[in-house]
């Protein structure tokens, strides 16, 4: 009776430990997968995928809540790379999430019209706009990811998207 009981308890404890270890390992695997997906994303942080940024989209992809065709800034190359990494069917970017641009665009502020409201500065996810309250703002073109998040908040509509080289 007693040896049987001890065996049962021992086996149950071993199974529990194994399950805990497996969970921890799968968590680590999951995190590594998110990192790998994040590395493929263009880091515009534009939110066009309906998630709040590139990393949230990466975790949604890792957990199967999002599809690979939701990133217009990355374009079809990124969609193909994601399909390859995740073993899903390759597919072009779904136009519902936005148009894929042939040429990268960056934001440009018409400095004569800027009133210095700092709203675009607050909206920029990568701190690529310089300026201060009641002073003219400008975009650091090299740092701009072209996410267009600064355009809707501008009260005087003085921000336009232009080709990166112009």
């Amino acid at each position: 009776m007693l040896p049987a009981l001890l065996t049962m308890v021992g086996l149950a404890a071993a199974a529990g430990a194994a399950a805990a270890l497996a969970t921890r390992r799968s968590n680590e695997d999951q995190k590594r997968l998110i990192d790998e997906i994040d590395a493929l994303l263009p880091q515009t942080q534009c939110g066009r995928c309906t998630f709040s940024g590139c990393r949230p989209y990466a975790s949604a992809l890792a957990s199967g809540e999002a599809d690979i065709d939701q990133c217009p800034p990355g374009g079809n190359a990124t969609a193909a790379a994601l399909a390859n990494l995740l073993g899903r069917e390759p597919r072009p970017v779904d136009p519902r999430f936005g148009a894929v641009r042939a040429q990268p665009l960056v934001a440009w502020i018409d400095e004569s019209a800027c009133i210095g409201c700092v709203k675009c500065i607050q909206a920029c996810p990568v701190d690529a706009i310089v300026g201060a309250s009641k002073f003219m703002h400008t975009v650091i073109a090299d740092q701009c990811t072209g996410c267009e998040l600064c355009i809707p908040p501008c009260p005087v509509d003085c921000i336009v998207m232009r080709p990166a080289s112009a």
Partner: protein
Amino acid sequence: MAKPGVRGGLRLDAHKERSTAQALRAASSVETLVLPLDQHAGAPAVPLVKPGEQVLRGQPIAEPGGAISAWLHSPASGTVAAIEPRPAPHRLGAPTLSIVVANDGRDERYAQPAPAPFDQLSPEQLREIIGRGGIVGLGGAVFPTAAKLSSAVRGQELRLLLNGAECEPYISCDDMLMRERARDVVFGARVLLHALTAQTCVIAIEDDTPQAAAALEAAIAEAHDQRIQLRQVGSDYPAGGERQLITAVFDVEVPAGGLPADVNTVCLNVGTAAAVAYWIRDAQPLTNRIVTVTGDGVLEQRNLDVRLGTPLAALIYDCGGYTSRMSRLIMGGSMMGQSLPHDGMPVIKATNCIIAASALDLQPRAAEMPCIRCGNCAEVCPATLLPQQLHWYAMGRDLDALEAYGLMDCIECGCCDYVCPSQIPLAERFRDMKPALTERLAARGSAAAARTRFDARTARLEHIESERLAALAKKRQELAKKSS
């Protein structure tokens, strides 16, 4: 014991003795000198003169247009005839903005500020002054020397490697320089050692240049400088490739994507060292260089000391003109040089050699055939790449695979082309694919930078929010204390 050499590589027939038989001579003076503003690596220089202005020999006529850029000096006295686009050899004949100087033949010298003895200057000052001489790497890459020296100094002990291993068949300008002006090379080495606060300098040459070796040994002995030593390496092509030479001499490998400074080495061409000597010792900025004029398509094959801006046609004229066998004009060596459409372009700082090639000089090239996967290319690749695989992936424009197989480590030496039994122009294919991969790597780099900035901003906003909440909680506590 075998001398250290390159991995892979080729033993090529040297065609150097044709052009080294005659002593170095100054090229004849010409009436018009054309100086492209973008003849160095980095940002184009910005003109300091206007059309119609008088200039003197050695006068600065353009200043650096950025952190990595170079000064440009007038190679003759005269007037600035124009500042306009002119065909340039480094653009393969496409026009690029150039200063045109009409030579008055009087050679009046510009009064340079009197140089202090170099060992009384601080290394920083000395590097700055070297930059003012318009000195760039004369081995062919024309990278501004002052920028290279400054970026290499990071607090560690450096060693200087002077590259005199002229592995390209046909080119002999460094060989002639070392034979006839070994003292200048050694003086330049001493200046550079001071500018780098380095304690060792190795001058590396190939083992098939006995006259240069003897001249350098004599010059080193005369200088009584224990820090400078001469080393001979095997004369396999491409022994003079920067990475190959560093491995052969110091037995260390420059990491992929890294620079020689990562293995505590600064590598400069011997011609650059001599140019440093002319500037620091004689106050002569870089306005001349030695050019090898060779090939079966020119009557007299020799080395000339040429003013920058001299038309290539004038060099050919100086060497007796073309022969009837002339078929193609090449700037640079026969392995890595590029064909030029005509000879109406000027000598620039990068012009080490002009080959007027006849059919005898050119490797006969039949029609390209499919790769038979013989593997000869992998055996000769000095960067230990697999050219047959790179070729396969280049055909499919598979950038992922090209990156994984090390396309960016290809030095475009052309060894693989040379041995390919199917006549595939491999190096050319690889050169064509590099811009696409570079663009992609840059995009990845800017994505990584955007991620860093985004993370920093998120952390900052969280920090501000937590501070605000903490202040709020503190105030609430104080209010609760007061009311109780």
